[in-house]
Each structure stands twice: as C-alpha cells, then as structure tokens.
C-alpha cells in the first residue's frame, strides 16, 4: 500500500488532487481512498489531503501519520509547517518550488529522496492561474508510478470539461520537468 499526504492551501485544490488520483487508481482496477483533512478549511490556510492506493481492499480508516510520499502544492508552506513530519525515511518528498535546492534545504527536515518542480510557473503558463493541483499529479506519477498517466485523463476530463486539456498539458509538463535532487 502507498500512502500519500498532500499539503496545500485552502482553495488550491488539494482535495481535487486526491480525488483525481483515487479515481485513476480505481479506474485501473486498484483499491484506493482519497480524503480531505476533515476540517473547516479556510481559503489560504494550510490544509492536508490524503490518498491510499493498494492492490488489495483497504480496511484502514485512520488518518495517515507515516506517509510514503508527501506532495507540497504551495512553495511557501515549507516555512510554515513541517511538511516532512512522519514521512518514512525511505519515502519521497515532492516540492513545488522555483528556488534551487540549496535555498529550500534549510526548511526541510528530511534526509531522504526529494524531488523538485516549478509547478507554479507551469500552472501560470498552461492554465493562467497559480493552481498546481493537477500539475503536481504529473510530478507524483513520474516519481512513483502510483498510477499510469493515461489513467488520469478520464477523471480530469470529467472534472474539468473544456479546460481539461490545459490541465492535462500542465500535468504532462510536470511529469517531464520534475527532478530528483
């Protein structure tokens, strides 16, 4: 089972990310959960959302404390919350940032694998808004193979309708541009 924790800000669509990922996994015949952090979320405030993906039926309904992967949608969050809290040492941290790793590193309490992508720039270019939820899905898929890229098409087309293609392009760019440090 892979457990993923997403960090974003209220309004950035972290909940949509976990929904798209869960639907893609279920579409592949896998078992998955996608759920928000169960709170009264305010626009701009730090929020979390979660995924579990497995080949077997998932019984666990407790929150995720020891994720395998953490995805951070907003570059500013690393100075506000410990995004690596509970992350397994052999796990993976994927950050949206335009900064070089040397500038990010002091804020990260994690010695394991870290991947960076400038998702905000991609989102501005492809979507015209700094909303990185679908973009970061591309980075996650590249780094983990949690689902296949094509499995995300249907959920994203269903959710985003006429702007689905822009989201799929942004996702594809993050897939290509994400780099392990």
């Amino acid at each position: 089972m892979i457990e993923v924790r997403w960090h974003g800000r209220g309004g950035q669509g972290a909940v949509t990310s976990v929904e798209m990922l869960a639907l893609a996994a279920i579409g592949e015949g896998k078992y998955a959960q996608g759920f928000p952090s169960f709170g009264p979320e305010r626009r701009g405030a730090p929020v979390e959302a979660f995924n579990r993906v497995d080949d077997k039926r998932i019984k666990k309904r407790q929150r995720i404390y020891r994720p395998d992967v953490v995805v951070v949608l907003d570059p500013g969050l690393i100075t506000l919350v410990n995004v690596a809290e509970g992350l397994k040492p052999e796990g993976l941290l994927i950050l949206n940032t335009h900064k070089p790793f040397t500038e990010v590193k002091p804020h990260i309490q994690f010695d394991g694998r870290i991947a960076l992508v400038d998702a905000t720039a991609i989102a501005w270019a492809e979507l015209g808004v700094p909303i990185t939820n679908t973009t970061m899905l591309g980075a996650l898929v590249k780094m983990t193979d949690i689902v296949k890229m094509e499995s995300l098409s249907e959920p994203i087309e269903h959710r985003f309708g006429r702007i689905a293609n822009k989201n799929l392009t942004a996702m594809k760019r993050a897939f290509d541009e994400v780099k392990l440090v």
Partner: protein
Amino acid sequence: MSKRIGMEIALAAAEAAALCRPDVIAAYPITPNTHVPEHLSEIVAEGRLDAEFITVESEHSAMSACAGASGAGARAFTATSSQGLLYMAEILAIISSMRLPVVMIIGNRALSGPLSIWNDHSDIMSQRDIGWISLFAANGQETVDMTIQAFKIAEHPDVMLPTNVNLDGFQLTHVVEPMLMPDQEEVDRFLPPFKPFAALNPDDPVTLGALGLPDIYTEACKSREEVLLNSKKVILEVWKEWEEQFGRKYEPIEPYEAEDAEVLMLTMGSMGETAEMAIDELRKEGMKAGLLKLKLWRPFPFEELKEAVKGAKVLVVTDRCLSYGGAGGPVALEVRSALYEEKKRPVILNYIIGLGGRDVMVDHFMEMIRTAAKADAERPEKAYEIYGVRE
C-alpha cells in the same frame, strides 16, 4: 449490471437514493451530510430523476415536508447530521407513530458544544427512542446497499416505519473509494413501487396523526413497539433477498474471526474495518481475538447478540457516544441489558472512543483488546473508560 465506480461516499449515497426513485426530497444542508442533498439536487436538475426537490429553510421543515409527502403517498427522502437531526426531533417521533416510511441518511456528527463538525454517534443516540429503524454502514459499499435496502424495509406492508441509515461523517461521507453501484433495472427489480397503507386524498378523506387520549395512547405505544420488534423478520428477509440478487451478505451482527474467539470486540460504523486489522495482528500473536460488527441498532438484535458472544470470556464494547451521568455508552448499556439474565456471559468492558472526530488507530484497538483480555479473571473496576482521554 452493477458497475464498479470510484466516488465520494456521500455522492454515492445520493446516487443510490436516486435509484430508488423518491418522489419527494426535502433537505437542508449541514456538514458533513451536505453532499448528499446537494448531489440529489443536481440529479433532479439534470432530469435524471423525476422528483420534487424542496429546498426548505430548516431541518424541522425538511422532516415536516417528508411527513406531508409520505402521508400523501409519496416516497420521501431526506438527509441530515448532528444539530440538524436535533432540529428535526419534534417531527421524528410523529413520523414513526404515523407509520410513514420516510428514509433518511444521517452523516453522523458530534453534538455541539463545544462546536464540532467531526464524527461520533451522539446525534442518532440522542434520538434513539423515537421508533425508527436504524442501520449502521461500515464502508461505502454498505452505504449504497443499505440506502436501497432501507426503502424496501421501511415500505414493507408489515413494517411501514421510517428508517435511517447512519454513516460516519467525514470518515465515510468525504472519502472517495471504490464501490459497486447497481443499475436502475437491478434496483427496480429489487424495490417495488411504494404502496401506502393510507394516503391523504381530498376525494377519499382519512385522518393521519389523530389525538391519542389516555385510553388509547398506551395501546398506540404498544403497537409501535410491536411493529418495530417484528420488523427484524422483514429486515432479515430483505437482506436475504439482497444477498440472492447482489451476492453481498448482511447480518444484524457481522462476525470477523469470532468463532473460536475468547476476547471479542464490538464496533458499530466505520471503525469496524480498522478494528479488523487489529484482530489480524493479535491473531498473529496467538491471541484468540475476534470482532462483532453491529449493523442493526434498532430493532436491537438481542438473540443474535446472545448467540454471538456465547463462547467468549471477555466482550469489549466500543461506543462513539457517552451517556452523561449514566453507565457508559448507549451500545454498552444495551449489550449489558441484553446479557444480564444470561447464566453464562462474558465480562463486559466498555470503551468510549472517537468522540468528536478523535482518531482511533489499529494500535489503539490492539491495546484495548489486550487490556480487556486481562480482565478475564476479575470484573472491571469501572463500568466504562473514555479511551485515551487527557485528565
């Protein structure tokens, strides 16, 4: 053919309700059940369901509208949570006394205060004695299935009672997961159209909800009690039919590794499957631990409970509600009463868990069961314990 889908469970509950072709939906949004009526309003607006969607100004009006609709012979549905259920309270008992088979989904949530939008069972437990049938779902699939079953149970000529389907707020309502969604043809085959016993009609006037003078009120209560107790037979029949048509088995108390268990835990709602993982771990350690998942809360399955705990030395009952000033949680109170007259019964411990959204993990269930196992020789000192509470 049923289709495997991924969907948020609240939306799936709305889809399941829509497949039952309700004539009237009257609901007022309240977290965490909001997505149920919201999605139903979309389904009606899209023209997928020919129903009257009444956007009422309160839960009191929602349940009143359901009473009127059901009284006029319509299939009526609503959904609520927490304070919304409390606001309906005045009408809830009237609905069951009038034998109106309204179906309601409750996205279970703690009661204020302090203000909490998170999950426990305090809402439905505060409305325990209102004469409704109460089912508890443990996952998305059970939510879908029980929503459809609820209409058939409620509207059965031998029942004609309102039925609520309880699903834990957030822990179920807001989770996207895979489910098998029946199609319209399958549901139509399972659920016949609603045939009211008596319906309000100006051309053929009847009185529903008449005054009950002291010479008849007691008898009215007795008949309500009798029909609720007798509804268990119908519930079991409906579950059997469901199993035959859809292949998924439902029981008032679903056992897990319980057959040879010396220590049994009992859960109700969404924590059952997490508790199953604790049982698996304890079995690996060699402990004879098992689980009972209570799905039918009202009418309470007394006989099934007695049978299920027969071989156990210790029974750990979990409750997601506290009866203030009483002797623990409502489920444990019921279980103790049910087993009191038994010559041989297990030692019963009661843990109050998961109040107002407090997370309960596999490790916690393991610890509760381990502690309880030691209670074998001696009776517990306290009637109940609020697990993990900071004092």
